[in-house]
């Protein structure tokens, strides 16, 4: 009896030790891979001199780069939100042949390298591409212009809203929508007054993820935009050029600004997530 109690006690001690070890490992991993780079950027900016922030943001090419990033991100996120909700609705509510295939295909952008996405866009819209004669005849410039940048960014953002909204729609079911209809609501009224409020936290979470992704996109945009300075150069592309041209200080400043926006979005995501989880618990 005594020996077995002692054995048990040492067993407990060992498992507690193992748990502490795991926690330390997880913390170390996160610190090394996530926190260290952030600290690194902040440190680089400070070392480069606070004055550099002012001069960087006074540069017309930097201002234009941020402006372009905002334009592209806003358009891509709006498109991906509207269509994401429609696709999520169809996936959650309708039974049709090919539904499971569609379910898998919408996640494709997560698996495909953005560089390949850019390449596909060039193949479709670039010189000799399928749609090029049609567009050229109408004088519409897609490649090396904003439309293609919005296009590839949208493609990359597709899964985020769908993946967040479809499970919520499935979980809330159709009871409340049925009730709304018997109470005399039209389809549109039902969506706006009942469905939308029920999915809002999941939707906002999806939008935040898509926005973060759109702001940070570089690979696909690099290929379709041509990264023309002051014209098709986004903030991420500016950072790339700054490093290539040995203008590290201003590159760091822009990188820090992008990182700050990401952190803000991350904060928003946490709030949305917490709200959504609370809803799930009580609802």
């Amino acid at each position, binding site marked *: 009896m005594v020996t077995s109690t002692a054995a048990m006690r040492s067993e407990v001690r060992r498992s507690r030790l193992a748990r502490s070890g795991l926690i330390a490992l997880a913390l170390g991993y996160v610190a090394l891979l996530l926190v260290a780079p952030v600290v690194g950027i902040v440190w680089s900016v400070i070392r480069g001199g606070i004055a550099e922030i002012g001069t960087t943001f006074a540069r017309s090419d930097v201002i234009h780069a941020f402006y372009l990033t905002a334009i592209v991100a806003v358009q891509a996120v709006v498109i991906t939100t509207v269509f994401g909700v429609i696709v999520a609705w169809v996936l959650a509510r309708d039974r049709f042949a090919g539904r499971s295939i569609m379910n898998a295909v919408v996640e494709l952008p997560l698996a495909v390298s953005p560089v390949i996405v850019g390449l596909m866009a060039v193949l479709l819209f670039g010189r000799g591409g399928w749609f090029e004669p049609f567009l050229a005849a109408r004088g519409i410039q897609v490649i090396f212009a904003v439309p293609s940048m919005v296009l590839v960014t949208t493609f990359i953002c597709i899964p985020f809203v769908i993946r967040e909204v479809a499970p919520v729609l499935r979980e809330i079911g159709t*009871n409340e929508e049925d*009730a*709304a*209809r*018997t*109470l*005399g609501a039209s389809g549109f009224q039902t969506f706006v*007054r009942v469905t939308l409020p*029920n999915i809002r936290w999941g939707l906002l979470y999806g939008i935040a993820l898509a926005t973060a992704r759109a702001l940070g996109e570089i690979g696909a945009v690099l290929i379709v935009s041509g990264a023309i300075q002051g014209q098709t150069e986004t903030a991420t592309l500016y950072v790339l050029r700054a490093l290539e041209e040995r203008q590290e200080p201003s590159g760091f400043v822009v990188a820090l600004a992008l990182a700050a926006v990401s952190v803000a979005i991350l904060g928003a995501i946490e709030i949305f997530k917490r709200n959504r989880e609370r809803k799930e618990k*009580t609802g």
Partner: protein
Amino acid sequence: MSNGAIEVRDLTKQFGDFTAVKDVSFVAPEGAITAILGPSGSGKSTVLRMIAGLERPSAGRIWIAGEESTYSSTQERRVGMVFQHYALFRHMTVAQNVAFGLAVRKESKAKQRARVDDLLHLVQLTPFATRYPDQLSGGQRQRVALARALAPAPKVLLLDEPFGALDARVRHDLRRWLDEIHRELGITSLLVTHDQEEALELAHQVIVMHEGRVEQAGSTQAIYNEPATPFVASFVGAANVIRGLVIQGRVQFGEQQLEGAMHLSEGAAAHAYIRPHDVLISSTNGAGGVAGTVERINDLGWISKVHLTLPDGQEVTAHVPNDRLVEVDVGGSVWVDLRNAKVFAPEGPQNALSDELAIA
């Protein structure tokens, strides 16, 4: 047809290869509560959803308050519906939930407020107006759901297992309360339930459904006392089943006989359905008594369930009020009087479900 009534004719619903509802016809009279009673999967909820316009019938026609509604949208039908799982709008307060049907019809704010006040008073939830559904008990939620359904002054009220998700005591209270509200408002109501007690207690008219069809429609008395089919006899109220053969208009089982098989042909198999309270036990032999052996007694406090074996080995259960339970011992012999037997020809291959239901 009267104005507030609901009528369906030859209503059929297919889901792929599965026929959920087949040729259902009935009239739910104006101002009354009509119950659709049936086990789960009998198609009763599907009938209700078709009347509400939430499902499209594969065939058949629907009239609501004298108006053909078969092809109308849910919005046009003006039905009030209460769902089993409340289906309250979880992001709205109680008052907002009740006002919803008025808000989507663009009623003035003042009118909405007045109507919400009236209805919350009716369902006795005035102090809860600013609460959210998740802050209410199940019974309170269902009262909100009823107030919400009544707010736009619907032509008829459809109740889909409204007490199904509640525990027994709340269910009893709400049942009585619904009865009172119905007396006050007199709205034509169609109640879907699998609970025969609920149907018999609340409804004036009962439609028994089984496997997508109507088995019997009639007054509660007719359904209980004059079941038209073996299914109704076993589903509505408990029943013992005694198996035998028809000999000279009686059911012969072992050495014993029961009256009531005149409608069946000589020599055919017959099943006699007898309510447990129609199985009388005495220590002396009256007219037509059968000897029985007591196998088991379950005392429920006010009645006892006495399980008996008859001479030919078949078993019956008697429900005997405890004040009339005399000299019954497990293993002892008693005289058994089987009254009011309803005799039917066995239905095709006997399915396990109806056997199971019969011995309740």
